[in-house]
Every structure is written in C-alpha cells, then in structure tokens.
C-alpha cells in the first residue's frame, strides 16, 4: 500500500479498545459461569471485528493472533472444546497480549513476545488452530454478519445502500470497511455484498451494497457513508422499508445486540480533543466574567433598550455555559469498566475470593476529573483486596461468606459526586495503627482511641502501613496518601469509615466539574472569599441564641448538635479584631463526612458560578485554597478548600 495508514491508527486504536473492553466483560461473564452462549458470541464478534480491523490496517501479526483466538472460540462455541479454568486463564492472558499489541500499534511483521507466549499457552490448553492458513481464503462469516448466507443477501427488511468509491480512492479496502462501520453506528448492517472480507481485501476502488435495518434518515445514512471518504456515489433505497418493519427490527436489535448497540452509542458521537474543550471552557469562563462586569455597568447606566439586550446576552451566556459543561460530562463507566478485570486479577494473585459490584455507572462527571480519579480508585480497590478482604479460610472461620464483597459506587449528592469503595473485610486494625503511630511519635504516648477521621489522617501519612506482608499489589500504604493528595488537588475530600471485623468504606467526594463551580461568596473585612457549595450544608444568621460558649470557646448550637465555630477572620489571619460575634454577621455550616463546623463571616454576598483558576502559591502561604477566581468587578478572590478547615480541629 502506498498511503501511510497512520492517519487511521488512532481511530483503529480507539475502536479496538472498545472491542477489548467488550472482550474483557464477556470473559468475566464466562468465568462467573451461567449461560455461556451469549458471552461466547459477544467474544466471537468482538474478536472478529478486531481481526478485520487489524488486517485492514496491515497489522498482520495482530490479525493472525486474533484469528487464532477466534478459532479456539469457535471450537468452544461448537462444543468441541471444554471451557476449563486453564483455558479461561489462557484467554485472559491472550486478551492482555492483544491489548498491548494494539496499544503499541504493532505494524511490525512479527508477533510480540507476549503474543507468542499467550499463543503457546492457548495451544497447550486447547490444541492448535485447525484453520490456520490466515490470511488466505476469507474465513467463514460469523457473528453479526452470519445471516448473510441467504440466496440474495440484499433481499430482506431494511434499506439498501449502494456505494461506489471514487476512481482515485486510496486504500479502498480501508475506506469500504470504514463506510460499513459508520453505517453500523446507525443500525444493524444485515448484509454486505460483496462480503466484508472481500471488500477489505480489495486493492482497487470498488462498488458495493449493504442492507441496513435502521430508523435513520436517508440523509444520515448518506452522510455516514460519505464520512468514510473517497465515496463517489451513494444511493439509499428505502423501498424495502416500512414503518412497522423497521421499528420492530430495531427493537429486536436493541435487546440482543449489546455490542452493536454499544458501538452505535459511541460512534454516533464526535470525538473531540479534550484540549479543545478546555480552550472552549476557558473562553466561556472569560465570557462569564465579562458578563458580570457588563451587568454592573448597565445597572449604573439605566437605559431600557440596553438593559433588555444585556439581559438577553446574559441569558445566552448562561445557556452556552450549561451546554459546554454538559458536553464535558461523561458517565463514570468509561473509567469503571476496566475495574472488574483488575479486581479479578488482583484477587487471584492474592488468593482471595471477591464478588465485585459496581453501582451508579451512569453518574456523570467532568471528563478531566474522571481521567484524574481513575488512579486513586485503583489504589483503593487494591487496598481493599490486599488488606481489607480476608482469605476464604479466615472468612469462613469468622462466620462470613467465603467470598468477600467489594462495592464500587458512584452517586450524586447535591453539588458533589461521591465515589465509594466499600468492602466487608476485617476493617482497619486500630490498635496496630495506634501502636505504629505511637512508635513513630505521631500521637501522644497516652493515646488509646482514635475516631475514623483521625485514623484516616494517620494512615494517610507516608510510611505508616499496617499490612502484615508487603505485597506487590498494594504497596506499602503509599496508596492512601496518593488518594488523599490527588483528591485534594481536585477540590474534593476523602472520608473513611471502618469497623473491626465488618469492613471499610472510603468515600471520595468530588465537585461535579473542575472548571466552574457554584460557590458562596463571603466577605471578611474588606476581603472576599469563595466557599464552594460542595461542602456547604446551610447558612444562618449570627444570633445570640444559637451561639453559646463552652469552656470559653464559642460553639454553634444547631438543632441537637453542638458544632465548633471558626471565624473566617482568624482562618485567613486578618489582623482585625479577634473573634467578634454579634449582630450583622452570618454563619456558614460546612461539612466533611460526619463532621460539621460553623464558619462565621462578616457578610454573605451571594451564590454564583465561579470560574476556577490556578495560581502560583506563595511561599509560606496557607494551604487552604484550591484555586482562585475572578469576580464580576475584575478582582481575584481565593477559593477556600473547605475540607481542609477540618484538618486543624
């Protein structure tokens, strides 16, 4: 081939990763037992797609490897091969080898050492491939395309799409394959004529037709085909489609074809470089600030016409901001999906029996936050498996089910997202942690008890690990430290709950988005501070009735609770008078986990969306701020990391 296919390499990798994710999900399902037919056919289809795509890209080593896997799976499907545990292990190893090879974009002719090893293992377990003359004659059509084998493949429900490629088309095989893939995003491609394998193998521009069961419009289909490039002519023949027919077929597809549906969902979207979204977000941020300034200006120069236009512009800016924020939101499953595999591997390596449950996959989070939070979650999961969940024998002796339960959940909580890793293991050994802490001089010699919060602060210190044995997987307790640092950097906080013998729950609380947060603006003296609503529970007026003194210290009596009271003036070290209660001041009730506290401010200016900006920290500056923002009048204001106010108390 004369054209450098590297332009397609990224597309290939992205789509292959989606297939690999489906492969791993299916393998996990298979391993759990139950009906093997569905996962096997998912595996088969995904493997077939990977094979096709890599062959088209000229990654022959990868294609051959996928072909071998496909033939083993075929034997399993036909019942000629038993799905023994050692075969499962070999398949998992093969999936890993495939993933590495795809990530490296193995255009080189040879197979990677991992692939060779995985193949050897597969052959040992399942015998060699019976049809290994790949890439010779097109292999038997399988999976999604298997129904092609009727007299006239184009005869049946759906629309007929006829395509002719441009005479000067480069890489016609790739283009044809891509055209089919693009159409597949709109519905079920029931048949392709000539066959997909033949299309892919084509070195000259080609005409082809496909039958598609879809509700997409003619324009959408035509657009999809043309987006593959080098298309001279497209015709969409809808004579075969009736309303009822297409509806019912789509419904069937939606029930049975999980893989098709998943890829349809993702390919209907446009992939945008995150840097572009960031740039857009920054511009919107500037616009939001400018809007604030303009609103102030128009307020001081009353003019009905100007005022009306300004209100209109202000509303449009708000809408634009909401749109872009929404654009940046992605469901957490995009990161969570790789965890079941990770948990399985860790559990096996440590001889633990673990049932892994994921909840709240659909919860959405800002893309950049989600990217950052993956690593901390991995630490928490590994910690839970390594240190939390006991060995099956130990669990049985304690009267627990042999399999430990590990739950990863995401949930919305007002302006925050909670990500929780919870296990039913042995819990953190408080006496041990305390003994270590005393030995290291981290707590007073006489300390015999710690609450969850203090315990968390102790284990979050680098070097204080309670693991009996230091394992490869969970390291030396640096995990919790890393989780804490990362979460704080993202404007969030970490909470711990642990009960001896019953388990441990660690909750990461994050703002929904990084770039713009809703905050309370508070005045202290002449200074203004932003308090993100993530940690604000409520506000109330300073009142002699709610503020009392206990041992000379002011406390807030809120319903049945007595909360410590902080003065923002003290917190930010304003040189003005020390604690000055009294009328005209207000109290913000802040919370982190179960801990609450009152923060006395001079005045609450109001709630608003603020654009979070980073700044260079000054030497010796208080580590109380997660960033700064620019207010409507153009002056910067610091954003308080409310969670950190609990550190000192």
């Amino acid at each position: 081939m004369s054209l450098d296919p590297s332009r397609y390499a990224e597309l290939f990798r992205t789509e292959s990763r989606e297939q690999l994710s489906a492969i791993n999900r299916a393998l996990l399902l298979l391993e759990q037992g139950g009906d093997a037919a569905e996962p096997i056919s998912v595996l088969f289809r995904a493997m077939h797609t990977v094979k096709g795509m890599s062959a088209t890209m000229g990654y022959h080593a990868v294609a051959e490897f996928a072909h071998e896997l496909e033939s083993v799976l075929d034997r399993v499907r036909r019942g000629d091969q038993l799905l023994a545990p050692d075969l499962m292990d070999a398949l998992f190893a093969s999936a890993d080898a495939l993933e590495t090879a795809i990530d490296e974009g193995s255009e080189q002719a040879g197979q990677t050492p991992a692939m060779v090893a995985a193949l050897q293992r597969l052959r040992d377990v399942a015998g060699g491939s019976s049809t290994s003359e790949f890439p010779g004659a097109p292999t038997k059509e399988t999976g999604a395309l298997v129904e092609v084998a009727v007299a006239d493949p184009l005869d049946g429900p759906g629309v007929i799409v006829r395509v002719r490629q441009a005479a000067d088309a480069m890489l016609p095989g790739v283009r044809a394959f891509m055209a089919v893939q693009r159409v597949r995003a709109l519905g079920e491609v029931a048949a392709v004529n000539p066959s997909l394998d033949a299309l892919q193998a084509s070195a000259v521009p080609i005409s082809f037709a496909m039958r598609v069961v879809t509700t997409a419009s003619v324009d959408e289909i035509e657009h999809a085909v043309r987006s593959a490039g080098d298309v001279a002519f497209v015709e969409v023949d809808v004579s075969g489609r009736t309303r009822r027919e297409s509806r019912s077929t789509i419904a069937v597809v939606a029930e049975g074809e999980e893989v098709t549906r998943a890829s349809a969902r993702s390919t209907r979207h446009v992939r945008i470089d995150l840097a572009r979204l960031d740039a857009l977000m920054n511009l919107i941020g500037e616009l939001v600030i400018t809007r604030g300034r303009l609103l102030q200006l128009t307020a001081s120069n009353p003019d009905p016409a100007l005022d009306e236009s300004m209100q209109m512009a202000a509303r449009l800016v708000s809408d634009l901001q909401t749109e872009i924020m929404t654009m940046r939101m992605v469901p957490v499953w995009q990161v969570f999906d790789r965890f079941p595999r990770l948990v399985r591997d860790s559990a096996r390596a440590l001889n633990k029996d673990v049932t892994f449950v994921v909840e709240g996959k659909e919860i959405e989070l800002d893309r950049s936050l989600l990217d950052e939070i993956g690593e901390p979650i991995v630490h928490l999961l590994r910690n839970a498996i390594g240190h939390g969940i006991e060995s099956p024998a130990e669990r049985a002796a304690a009267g627990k089910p042999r399999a430990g339960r590990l739950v990863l959940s995401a949930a919305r909580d007002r302006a925050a997202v909670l990500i929780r890793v919870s296990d039913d293991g042995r819990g953190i050994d408080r006496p041990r942690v305390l003994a270590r802490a005393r030995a290291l001089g981290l707590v007073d010699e006489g300390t015999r008890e710690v609450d969850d919060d203090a315990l968390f602060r102790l284990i979050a210190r680098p070097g204080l690990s309670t693991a009996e044995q230091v394992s490869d997987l969970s390291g030396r307790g640096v995990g919790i430290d890393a989780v804490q640092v990362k979460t704080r950097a993202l404007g969030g906080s970490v909470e711990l709950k642990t009960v001896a013998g019953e388990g441990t729950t660690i909750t990461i609380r994050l703002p929904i988005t990084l770039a713009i947060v809703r905050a309370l603006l508070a005045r202290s003296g002449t200074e203004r501070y932003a308090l993100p609503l993530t940690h604000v529970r409520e506000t109330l007026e300073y009142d002699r009735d709610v503020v009392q003194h206990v041992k000379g210290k002011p406390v807030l009596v809120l319903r049945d609770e007595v909360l410590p009271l902080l003065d923002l003036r003290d917190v930010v070290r304003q040189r003005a008078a020390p604690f000055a209660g009294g009328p005209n001041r207000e109290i913000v009730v802040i919370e982190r986990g179960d801990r609450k506290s009152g923060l006395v401010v001079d005045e609450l200016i109001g709630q608003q969306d603020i654009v979070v900006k980073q700044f260079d920290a000054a030497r010796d500056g208080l580590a109380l701020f997660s960033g700064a923002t620019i207010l409507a009048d153009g002056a910067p204001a610091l954003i308080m990391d409310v969670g950190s106010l609990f550190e000192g108390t």
Partner: protein
Amino acid sequence: MQVRRFLLFGVAGRLCACDLDAVREIVPARAATRLPGAPEWVRGLINLRGTLVTVVDLAVRFGSADGAAGTRSIIVAEAAGKTFGIGVDEVRNVQSVAEDALEGVDAQRAAGGIIRGLAHVGIARAETALVVDVAEIVRQALVL
C-alpha cells in the same frame, strides 16, 4: 564588548535595573488580593487579562518606611518558569550597559540575595542602579 540591556526603574527612591530579557510587559498597579500566610512583601494576586499573577512589592522588601504606598507600576516578568509581577514606583527606560559598567554583578549579593550587583548608567555613567535578580525574587516568593 558585550552589551546587556536593562530596564531601569525606581523603588523607594532607589534606582534599580533588571535584565530586559526577563520582562514581558509593564502594567499600571492595581488592587491585589492578599494571600494569607505569605510574606509581607508578597502583595497578592492580580488579574492580568484573565490570568492570575502573583505580585511582589520591592519597596516592602527593601524595608521602605512608606511600604507599597508609592507603587504605581507592575513589571510583569518571566523567570524560573513562572510569570509574576514586581511592583515598582516608576519605570524609567531601557538602557544598554557595557560589561565594564557593571560592578560586582554575580559576585556580590545584597538585600537577601535579590540585589546582584551595580550598574553604572546614564550620561557619563553618572548614576548607579541596583541590579535586581528576578529569578531570585521568584525563588524567594513562590513555591516552585
């Protein structure tokens, strides 16, 4: 002979100079947001067209009795990978200074390392300017 270009400015009645290469722009002084806990000579954050820039006050650093009262301009500089502002009383001009008009540069330090020598400037080198080390200011003011 090697010639270096300096920006000349006044701080609390003293003539100062810094390498022109480090200077990005000069903006009028504006209100800054205090950074709690930071040293007193770190004035705080200013809004520079949507970017937050930390500003230091040289007058305060030099121990001037009037503090930052006379600060009218901010030199926006780049050093050690950071953009930051230096509050000064007035900005004078740019002058080329020959090597032999520099005295003790990088050999003698003063004002806690911030002054790295003297430059003889002006007509017939009649005036003496304190050469300020902008990179050292960053190192002392910010967390790198």
